[in-house]
Every structure is written in structure tokens, then in C-alpha cells.
């Protein structure tokens, strides 16, 4: 059996689902954030695989951009969580039920 594009896509899909699972079942903001990171990484994997099997480097450039955006996103997201924690002393989504601070 030869490993091909399909195998990579399946791994990527499963990883995406795992990230989704984390977002759905975990109630901690930071762990939810990690789930998001997993989903981004899954997308990256499929992009790299497409790039490899379609002989086109554009996919890798895309991944490069994704990684950069993810880094920026994590920085902003974590800053938000820290700011939230300062106000509310919690990072648990179930405790954040008011609309106004």
C-alpha cells in the first residue's frame, strides 16, 4: 500500500475533528483555544499535502501565512483571556454569562 494524498487528508480530517471535540466538550477558555490551534494545524497539514501532491508550492506559502496568522491570533487571544481573568478571576466559559462588564 502506498501512502497518498488521501491518507494525509484522513489524518488531517481526524485531527480537525479532535480539535472540534475539544472546542465542544471542554469548558476552559485556554483548552478551547488549544482545540482551535489543533484545527488550524489540521488545515495546515492538508494544505501541505495538497501542495506536495499537486506539485505546487503555493499551498506551502499558504501554510506559512496560516502559521503567522495563528501566532498573531494566539497572542491577541491570550491577551484577551488574561484581561478577562483580571476582571472576572475565571477562564471558564460557563462563568461568563453576562453581556456586560
Amino acid at each position, binding site marked *: 500500500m502506498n501512502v497518498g494524498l*488521501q491518507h494525509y487528508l484522513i489524518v488531517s480530517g481526524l485531527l480537525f475533528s479532535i*480539535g472540534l471535540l475539544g472546542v465542544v466538550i471542554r*469548558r476552559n477558555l485556554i483548552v478551547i483555544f*488549544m482545540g482551535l490551534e489543533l484545527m488550524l494545524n489540521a488545515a495546515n497539514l492538508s494544505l*501541505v499535502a495538497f501542495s506536495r501532491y499537486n506539485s505546487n508550492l503555493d499551498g506551502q506559502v499558504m501554510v506559512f501565512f496560516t502559521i503567522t496568522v495563528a501566532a498573531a491570533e*494566539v497572542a491577541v487571544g491570550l491577551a*484577551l*483571556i488574561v484581561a478577562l481573568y483580571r476582571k472576572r478571576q475565571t477562564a471558564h466559559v460557563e462563568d461568563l454569562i453576562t453581556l456586560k462588564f
Partner: protein
Amino acid sequence: MPQFTDILFFGLAGLVLLFGFLTVANPFSRNPVTSAMFLVLTIVSLAGLYVLLHAFFLAAVQVLVYAGAVMVLFLFVIMLLDLKEEEHRRLKSGILAVGSLAVVAFVGILLATLLKAKPAASAVAGRLVEGDTAKLGTLLFENWLLPFEILSVLLLVAMVGVILLTKKDLK
């Protein structure tokens, strides 16, 4: 006889999925630090998969940026926020059941689609490209120059935003 790279693929893919699962739903510990550490392992194994796909530059960047910088940021925030409470909270079984069901359904749709789709004819060995740094750089600075520049502005904006957000008082 399966090729060496195939064995590597299955090993790494297994590790990626296992570590990924332990990141979000570790049955033994709900400590966010443990989650973060498993996420690091996931990322490093993913870098291994990138190497298998001959995307060496991306593999290095993946480890450097994700594992080296982003995840340390995560760890910092977790450690400084003192999230002990998380370990004692009980997961609500209703959420757990519904969430799992939704995800399983999602996986079903995904797999059904992927297995139905025939891989393109171009996806064969021989004409595969290398993730060479020089080629990637040329591409980045010729075809993708505008997005690249926009991205740098985005990073700057993020930087300013983060500093503003985490400042204690904005006077």
C-alpha cells in the same frame, strides 16, 4: 513490503492523533499544562509529517514558531493564571454526550466524503515538489508579496493590540 516512509507515516500519523486526543480529552488529567504539553507533542509530530511531505522549511518553522514561541506563551498564561479550579470541575455529561455525538457525526461525513473522492491523477510520485527554502522564498516575494506585506502589518497591529490589552491601567 511497505516502504520505510510508509511505516514512518503511519507511526507519525498515529502519534499526531493520539497526542491530539490527549490534548483535548485526556482521561487521566484535566490540567491545562498537560493539555499544552500534549499539544506541543502534537505539533512536533506534525512537523515530522511535514518532513515526510518534503516541506522542510515549514517543518522547521512549525517547530520554531508553534512549539518554540506560541506554546510557551500558552504555558506562561496557564501558569500565571493559576487555573487549579479547572481540575476539580466536573464535565457535564449532557454536553459531553451531545458534543461527542456531533463530532462523531462530523467525522462520519468527512470520512464518507474522503473515501468516496478519488485522488487526482496528478497525485503520483515522480513529479513531486520539494519544500525548498529558496523556491519558497522566491514565490513568497514574487507572487505573494502583497499578502506578505499585509501580514506584517497584521503582526504589528496584533503586537500593539496585545500590549494595550494587557496593560493594567490605560492612563
